[in-house]
């Protein structure tokens, strides 16, 4: 009874093939220096290393949970590097690669997954909002923020653009459609960046949509494009163009990055219950890092020394992440009452004071050897 029409797969924008070859695209020309190319490679490798380390930390009980970006590095690093400092990004909970580009330190990311914080950084400082766990809620925040940018008169070639990340599953939420519509009606400078990683926990895209997701945009009156999400150059070039489009006052755009979640949904998940390994194998051949490495090698842009250097840096970052994770301080119990309100609130103050007394009573009791 479900819709059996297999989704016809449309053309992807691809600038770097899985074989490491550059392709020209009429709409998305890209002119990239060797140094930039090496930089992207470095980003990809390092962020994967951070991710791998985090998975391990979870296995060791140092993190409560981790949502791995494995396989999605190119989508995230490409789009993240397309952002300018003044731009604002609204992530979901898996955007460790974008966070990396925005200058968030890995330990700041870990703090939420370790349970020592519900956030971890100041969004204004990094131009990167907090992780959003309630699926699609951030799509409206991004749109509203972009409406604020309009009101600030901050558009133009050097203006501000906003980007919002979400998954294939998130497109089903009413909030995402409302965001598309608010953005369209207001012509807001926001780029919707959907990482279609083929899974929303255990559900494949056919349970979320009958036709390719990028087409959703046209129904709301703005352009949508599907890119090879494992191609860091496509992600960079198309996102850069979309941000420029937004920045210059031409309104929203939807980018569907066609990629694949190589790992489990989170460390809690067991994908063997719902997907076959052949699929994984197929996507392994499209690995987002391998193709850049092949390209660098084939073009002679990077030598073994460079690769060794990046690997060494990855190792040391891995170590740092491990150390910094363990060093993350546990919050003080009274932090429960911290910043619930911006303005004084007698009710909360009273609860805090009572709880402080309660805690102290144990210390007293301990001191007296009562308990």
């Amino acid at each position: 009874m479900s819709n059996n029409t297999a989704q016809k797969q449309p053309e992807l924008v691809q600038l770097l093939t899985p074989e490491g070859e550059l392709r020209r695209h009429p709409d998305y020309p890209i002119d990239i220096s060797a140094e930039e190319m090496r930089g992207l490679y470095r980003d990809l490798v390092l962020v994967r290393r951070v991710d791998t380390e985090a998975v391990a930390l979870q296995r060791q009980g140092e993190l409560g949970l981790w949502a791995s970006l494995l396989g999605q590095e190119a989508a995230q690093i490409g789009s993240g590097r397309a952002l300018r400092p003044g731009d604002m990004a609204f992530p979901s909970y898996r955007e460790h690669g974008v966070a990396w580009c925005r200058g968030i330190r890995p330990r700041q990311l870990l703090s939420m997954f370790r349970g020592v914080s519900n956030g971890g950084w100041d969004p204004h400082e990094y131009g990167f909002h907090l992780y959003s766990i309630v699926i699609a809620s951030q799509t409206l925040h991004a749109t509203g923020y972009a409406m604020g940018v309009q009101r600030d008169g901050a558009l133009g070639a050097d203006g501000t653009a906003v980007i919002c990340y979400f998954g294939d599953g998130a497109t089903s939420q009413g909030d995402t459609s409302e965001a598309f519509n608010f953005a369209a009606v207001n012509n807001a400078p926001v780029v919707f960046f959907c990482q279609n990683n083929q899974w929303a926990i255990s559900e494949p895209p056919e349970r979320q949509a009958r036709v390719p997701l990028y087409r959703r945009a046209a129904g709301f009156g703005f352009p949508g494009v599907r890119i090879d999400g494992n191609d860091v150059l496509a992600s960079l070039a198309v996102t850069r163009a979309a941000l420029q489009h937004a920045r210059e006052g031409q309104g929203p755009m939807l980018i569907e990055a066609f990629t694949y979640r190589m790992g489990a949904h989170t460390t809690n998940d067991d994908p063997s219950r719902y997907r076959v390994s052949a699929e994984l194998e197929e996507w392994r051949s499209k690995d987002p890092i391998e193709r850049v490495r092949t390209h660098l090698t084939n073009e002679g842009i990077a030598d073994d020394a460079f690769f060794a250097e990046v690997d060494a840096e990855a190792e040391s970052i891995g170590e740092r992440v491990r150390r910094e994770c363990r060093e993350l301080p546990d919050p003080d119990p009274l932090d429960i009452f911290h910043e619930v309100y911006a303005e004084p609130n007698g009710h909360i103050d009273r609860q805090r004071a009572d709880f402080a007394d309660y805690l102290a009573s144990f210390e007293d009791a301990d001191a007296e050897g009562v308990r």
Partner: protein
Amino acid sequence: MTTNLTIGKAINAGLRRAMESDPKVLVMGEDVGKLGGVFRITDQLYKDFGADRVIDTPLAESGIIGTAIGLALRGYRPVCEIQFDGFFFPAANQTFTQLAKVRRRSAGAVTVPVVLRIPYGGGIGAVEHHSESPEAYFAHTAGLRVVTVANAVDAYWMIQQAIASDDPVVFFEPKRRYYDKADVDTTADLGSAAPMHTARVARPGQDATLLAYGPMVKTALQAAQADTEHDIEVIDLRSLAPVDYDTITESVRRTGRLVIAHEAPVSHGVGAEIAARVTESCFYHLEAPVIRVGAFDTPYPQSRLEEHYLPDLDRVLDGVDRAFTF
């Protein structure tokens, strides 16, 4: 200099003054523009402040609150109108999981000074979903401030205080009292108004405390007047979260009796919390259990039944009587 204003016009004047004094203040919602809202609370604001500051939004409450959060993150102070109480619920997710919590989530890095204006309560002969009193859902949600007004003076000042607050504030407007008038000194300083979180003794008395808020304050005052046997103190609660327990307990310790009246269904209404808390803090002072008067625990009925559904003067008096049978 005082002006005689209805509650509706006082909110309008308060909004205008807030918009004049802070260019970051925006008004947004369904039909708030040219129409001035279905209750005309935003009347003329569109004309005077333009479409960028008075935003007719698409018909989507989640979108309204969600984009308001985004605007707030960008430094704006959006005042959102929810057209009627019963149409808040599509925005529940953005309000309860985002608006209320984002500050704490960010450990204070992020401030979302959004005001939700919600005309609420019954008694206007409307069809379903236009007469509800959903305030308890909000009061139960940490991170929100919840206030309501019973007269034009509070309407004028408290809407400005709500906008000035760095916390998200849910501002409940007693729609059936929109046309009640009072003299308002619109030239005074905002700082001179009583703080938004305080309750107000609306009528002093000795024998029992009658607590009400929003549209029921008028009924409570009428009941106090009508009860010639007892000297009833009436408290206008004003702030439902946080609650000004100092004012309430001071009164109850004096009178020994507390009756709470609200339009919302009794069960799990705001009165339940106040009753439980006051009973705990005033246990030895209470001559009678706290008596609650409210609507029945049923959906709001068809309008031809609302006079029976809503607590009216007689039901409030009946509640007061019950408090004296103990």
